[in-house]
């Protein structure tokens, strides 16, 4: 009997290990929030933030996960950073008080603590986005999710793509409405290494 109990324990131990919450730290070189807005109702203007940090936790057995992102708003980049003959470049304008107001609000954060799963895979993250000192709910749909070992350093990693949308006016960013659309599409590509 004792031998059987020990055997069962030995069999379940690896499963218990799998069920434990796993913590990951985001890789800032492969984690970039992108955004897209409509310009004059004609084209989409794309931009991204070059510096983002954060972490996520996933517990597949308990179907729980969380995500924390901290975005350096001064790192906003649309590719238009040379003012040329204009008084300012688009990136300079985005950093000023009309848009991201980086001198006053150097960080934008997302704290996602309600995650819906599709099987073992996180499908939707709902949390709170804080931008310009205003906190509002935001849901990101996880469109891609994968976990594997980094082929070079063999470290276990997970990551994927998530997307969502928000109304910038909800956060007090009302400059150039409606010429620049109120709706902002968000696309976050992220990768994290297990702690």
């Amino acid at each position, binding site marked *: 009997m004792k031998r059987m109990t020990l055997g069962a324990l030995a069999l379940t131990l690896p499963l218990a290990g799998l069920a434990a919450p796993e913590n990951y730290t985001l890789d800032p070189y492969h984690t970039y929030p992108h955004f897209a807005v409509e310009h004059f109702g004609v084209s989409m203007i794309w931009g991204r933030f070059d510096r983002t940090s954060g972490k996520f936790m996933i517990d597949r057995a308990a179907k729980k996960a969380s995500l924390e992102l901290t975005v350096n708003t001064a790192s906003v980049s649309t590719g238009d950073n040379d*003012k040329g003959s204009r*008084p*300012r470049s688009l990136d*300079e*304008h985005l950093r*000023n*008080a*009309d848009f991201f*107001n980086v*001198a*006053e609000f*150097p960080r934008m954060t997302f704290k996602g603590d309600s995650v819906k799963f599709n099987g073992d895979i996180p499908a939707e993250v709902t949390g709170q986005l804080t931008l*310009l*000192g*205003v906190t509002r709910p935001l849901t990101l749909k996880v469109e891609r999710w994968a976990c594997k070992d980094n082929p070079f350093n063999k470290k276990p990693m997970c990551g994927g793509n998530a997307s969502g949308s928000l109304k910038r006016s909800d956060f*007090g960013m*009302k*400059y*150039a409405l409606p010429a620049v659309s109120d709706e902002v599409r968000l696309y976050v590509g992220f990768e994290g290494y297990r702690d």
Partner: protein
Amino acid sequence: MRELLAHPIVQSSALPFVVGLLAAALLLPLRLSGLAAAAGFAATVMAVGNFALEPLTATRKLVVLGGAAALLGALADLAFRPTRFTGMVLGALFGGASLWAFASILGQKSPLEAALLGAGLVAFTAWLVAATVSLHYDPVRAGAAALALGLGAGIASVLGASALLGQYGMALGAASGAFLLLVMVLGARVAAGTSLTLTASALAALIAAGAMLLAQVPATALAALALVPVLVRLPLPHVPGWMQAVLASVYAFVAAGGACALAWLAGRGWTI
């Protein structure tokens, strides 16, 4: 009409000018025509529609302080006889208030940088308010100074990459221009008082300081703007009142134009 009011140029020029003119004319019997600047500015703030008390950002604190300046100015005009110390007291008060307005930005700097910037802000705001308020007895010079301060701070802000502060500054200039127009037509019986001089100088100082901290307006542009209340004191010839208003405005625009030129040069990478 709604579309027209949504246009940034209308919001920061025609709208505050018309509202300022109406306010100056309606408040003439109360000798509070100087509230034209506050009325025109408030109209623009409402039209732009970006005002709320939560979160109270630096730009919004600036609007709150503009409202406080208008109230305090009107109270001073109605209840007190301004002395030569009035400008200094109000200057010190709004110099201190500028620290409150920009505390969230200063708090993110190193202690030394915050101290230097804070001292500069207090000195600039205190000087501009004290020197402009002391023009309260002279509607021609006060109106010209308010016009140049508003337009100077506004255009410099646009050149320094802040459209919202630019709109606010130009609105202040347009509303002050409406006041000056009434002075040109009706003469010295249109009182500038503390209601015009305090509102215009406090708002212009805060807009320019905000454009320096939140955008890319150089400190040298603020120094040039600080010369407006000095240049506007240059002697005026004995000519009709409207001509004196034009001349005083030209004097004031030498300093305000200099501020805009410095902001424009800084945008091209040239600094002094």
